[in-house]
């Protein structure tokens, strides 16, 4: 067989079981694909060039990999080799997967386009003049371009869902604490979530179930209360469409694709109603205060003494966020910024909890637009921050969200939608996602590269 790199994870597992091919052959085909096309899209910062006997997966470069360079896509860590694996990486290795390489991202995952990477932007496999999204842009592009079977990303304000949406793949931001953060180079500790990025929702579910679980090395992990909600077929399921997610600021072709998806699901037995998340407009300002504050504290560890280089080599966006966070935590401004933002954060969680009393899940676009041009938003940081308007709410509330493709724009760029649910409702979210993918084939489309 050839082109084993095109397989989904579920197809790979089945073929291995039936002895049609072995994991090493899949690994070799993926390496060949990387050699052939990665110079065009730049998904990988580092590759593992020895074919391994495991299903090849790509790991965002902020997750530690034992013996394999982990740079956070920042020049400050361009020589750092972790002596240990992140818990989520270790779990996947134990389950029979092998790391094929480390994927490009915005430096330390600060950004929404990978343009903040210290090594250059990842290009969107659907259109090389556009961004792959971010911050997990390399992981999304690697999956979309069949350079690996699946990938890991991290989502602090949308960094899994946004690039998944721009590249036409599926990706889950889990409930906060369900997947261990141990070995993740911390960005904002109350928001960071490692999660799966795959070719289908079904693949994401398999990966998620291997990744999740309590970890004594991360005291915030919490799965003890993870009660499996009844599956779709066993219940009447109502999905809310938040009216703020369909407002004037959202491109029509994005809104139309998501509405079409809702219509299709409605025809197939899912109930829909409009709901409201009235504090949506405050998500981005609250997020940037909290994220910068936590960043300024987390980034203090990079002194150049134990690993890496001097702080003056931080990329511009890293410096900007450290500055903003230090200011908003400083005496005289703490109440006005950090404390105020933390209070509004509670109102944002309240919005979601009220909505989930009426409906089981929520559905909406991931972003207001499809993938934008490289360089289009780099001159104005605020413009880039506004990309996060529909994604940051799930992080601030700690709830899970699944991005999956639901159509294409007039310029043949993928459009994505997200399914959000209450804390620990991943199973129900996957169920709805799988139902949608059984009715459509958007997720089967691949870029011609």
């Amino acid at each position, binding site marked *: 067989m050839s082109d084993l790199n095109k397989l989904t994870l579920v197809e790979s597992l089945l073929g291995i079981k039936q002895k049609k091919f072995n994991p090493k052959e899949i690994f070799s085909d993926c390496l060949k694909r990387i050699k052939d096309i990665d110079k065009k899209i730049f998904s990988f910062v580092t590759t593992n060039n020895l074919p391994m006997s495991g299903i090849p997966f790509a790991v965002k470069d902020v997750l530690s990999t034992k013996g394999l360079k982990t740079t956070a896509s920042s020049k400050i860590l361009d020589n750092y080799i972790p*002596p240990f694996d992140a818990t989520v990486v270790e779990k996947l290795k134990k389950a029979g997967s092998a790391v094929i390489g480390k994927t490009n991202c915005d430096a330390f995952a600060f950004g929404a386009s990978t343009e903040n990477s210290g090594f250059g932007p990842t290009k969107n496999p659907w259109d090389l003049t556009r961004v792959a999204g971010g911050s997990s842009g390399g992981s999304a592009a690697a999956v979309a371009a069949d350079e690996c079977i699946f990938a890991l990303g991290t989502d602090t304000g949308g960094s899994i869902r946004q690039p998944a949406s721009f590249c036409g793949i599926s990706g889950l931001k889990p409930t906060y604490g369900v997947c261990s953060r141990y070995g993740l180079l911390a960005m904002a500790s109350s928001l960071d979530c490692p999660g799966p990025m795959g070719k289908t929702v079904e693949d994401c579910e398999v990966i998620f179930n291997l990744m999740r679980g309590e970890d004594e090395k991360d005291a915030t992990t919490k799965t003890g209360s993870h009660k499996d909600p009844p599956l779709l077929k066993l219940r009447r399921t109502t999905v809310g469409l938040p009216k703020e997610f369909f407002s004037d600021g959202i491109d029509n072709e994005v809104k139309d694709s998501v509405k079409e998806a809702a219509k299709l699901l409605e025809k197939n037995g899912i109930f829909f109603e409009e709901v409201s998340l009235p504090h949506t407009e405050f998500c981005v300002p609250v997020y940037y205060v909290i994220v910068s504050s936590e960043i300024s504290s987390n980034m203090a560890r990079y002194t150049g003494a134990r690993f890496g280089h001097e*702080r003056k080599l931080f990329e511009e966006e890293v410096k900007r966020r450290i*500055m903003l966070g230090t200011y908003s935590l400083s005496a005289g401004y703490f109440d006005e910024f950090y404390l105020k*933002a933390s209070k509004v*954060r509670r109102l944002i969680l309240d919005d979601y909890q009220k909505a989930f009393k009426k409906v089981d899940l929520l559905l909406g676009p991931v972003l207001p637009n499809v993938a934008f041009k490289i360089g289009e938003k780099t001159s104005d940081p605020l413009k880039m921050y506004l990309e996060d308007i529909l994604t940051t709410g799930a992080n601030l509330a700690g709830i899970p969200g699944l991005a999956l493709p639901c159509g294409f724009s007039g310029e043949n760029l993928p459009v994505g939608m997200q399914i959000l649910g209450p804390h620990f409702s991943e199973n129900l979210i996957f169920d709805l996602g799988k139902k949608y993918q059984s009715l459509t084939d958007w997720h089967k489309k691949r870029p011609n590269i």
Partner: protein
Amino acid sequence: MNKLTKQEVDHIGGLTNLELTDIEVEKFSTQLTKILDFVEKISSVDTGNISPLTQTTGSKNVFREDAVKESLTQKEALSNTASSYMGLFKVKQVLEK
């Protein structure tokens, strides 16, 4: 409106040990002022009796036994440093003699 002056940017740059260049100080003064101006819209939200939220899934004081366990070896812990001395990290002098 919170105007972040160049002096303030310079001061924060010192606190954060970022060694900002003059060009960066100038740029950040303008950009951070604009960002602060934008985030200030949160002040319009009534949060009178609302308590701050920092933990979303309800975890509180998670404890584990304080037991000695296997950890990195000294060699592994020092494997990424540019400067070590007799099995220790060697850092710049902090206190004056």
